[in-house]
């Protein structure tokens, strides 16, 4: 009879620890769930996603996934992996993601606008797939983006002006799509040339920039030749 209270308190302690343990791994699980949602929407004939086991604490031991020192996903490397299927909105939950490399596959469907939530993203490489639909204007929120390569897809619609606000852009490639309308030349797009927009038959690429150069150079005065 005397042992009962101590047994109950041991049990309570164990239960308490178990509950705490569960809460401490919730974040890791959420990212694993997001990536697993992607796995569900992809067809993977080469079995590159074989290690993607959702019962693990977090996805950090999965192949093609890299985590930072806080066990949060920083890279997804699935380039040239012979994947079919579609991307998923859940990718937008990987808040510490810096590199999303899914180039060179057979992925169709749209670019989820939720990718605009990946505010740590430095590289978005979805080139050489069969992506359709529009370039989401939410991508303008990716204010640390250096590489935006969506070339060689079947993207339609216009180029969102929001992209011109991304001052960190070093490489922009939207070539080989079905984009239309005018190519912006302001903001960061002053650093891009027809190369970035080639082979979009309905896209109007200015051969010469339309706007005069911004300060400090004033608009050219009439020249005496």
């Amino acid at each position, binding site marked *: 009879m005397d042992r009962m209270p101590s047994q109950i308190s041991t049990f309570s302690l164990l239960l308490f620890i178990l509950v705490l343990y569960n809460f401490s791994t919730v974040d890791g699980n959420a990212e694993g769930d997001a990536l697993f949602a992607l796995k569900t929407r992809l067809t993977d004939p080469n079995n590159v996603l074989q290690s993607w086991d959702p019962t693990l604490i977090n996805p950090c031991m999965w192949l093609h996934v890299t985590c930072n020192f806080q066990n949060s996903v920083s890279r997804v490397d699935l380039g040239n992996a012979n994947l079919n299927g579609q991307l998923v909105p859940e990718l937008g939950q990987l808040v510490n993601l810096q590199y999303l490399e899914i180039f060179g*596959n057979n992925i169709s469907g749209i670019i989820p606008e939720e990718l605009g939530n990946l505010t740590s993203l430095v590289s978005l490489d979805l080139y050489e797939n069969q992506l359709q639909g529009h370039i989401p204007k939410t991508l303008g929120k990716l204010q640390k983006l250096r590489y935006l390569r969506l070339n060689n897809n079947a993207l339609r619609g216009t180029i969102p002006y929001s992209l011109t606000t991304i001052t960190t852009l070093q*490489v922009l490639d939207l070539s080989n799509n079905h984009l239309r309308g005018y190519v912006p030349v302001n903001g960061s797009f*002053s650093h891009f040339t027809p190369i970035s927009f080639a082979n979009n038959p309905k896209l109007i690429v200015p051969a010469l920039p339309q706007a005069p150069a911004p300060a400090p150079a004033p608009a*050219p005065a009439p020249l005496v030749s």
Partner: protein
Amino acid sequence: MNLIILLTLLLTLVSGEDDVQCLRGVKSSLNDPRQSLATWNFSNSSIGFICNFNGVTCWNDQQNRIITLNLGDFGLEGGVPKDLKQCESLQNLDLSGNKLTGSIPNDLCVWLPYLVSLDLSDNELTGVIPDGLGNCTFLNTVVLSGNKLSGGIPNSLTNLRRLTRFSVANNELNGSIPSGLGGFGKESFEGNSGLCGKPLRKCSTRTRRLIAL
């Protein structure tokens, strides 16, 4: 997807672009006493192999197509290499801080029409700033300071409507600064005793008459 790669390869053959040849030529035409280009090894040619070369940034790692060539402070000697013309997708060229001699090629913008940034500063370049530079209509940055360039600043540079950063300081330039470039600060032009006009001192009438010829 393999078809796309094949087509792109065919396209580059047809268009004459050959970035591998470009770099081969650059390496062979320059003297490289510091061995800065030692990593430029052409024996193993896998997909995108030049993308890992020192100073080279590719458009993407799946193609040998260069967007940026930054050979600043490599200790290189020789003239501006003609083989650069095979790097047709080049947008950013930085050859600053070397020991380059000879003149700035007049055909530079025929070779590299998509240049966005050109930095040839701190070399030993001579001759004039070529007219042809005005044909690189996408240039945002032109830095030619710290050379031995002579003659005037060509009016054609006022065609560069995207120009936001410009310097020809510390050369041997003379004549009147084209009015379209007058919005840049004094530091863009100083160190050229013969240069006049906004933002520097007004040109004397004698100078203006000379230019009218």
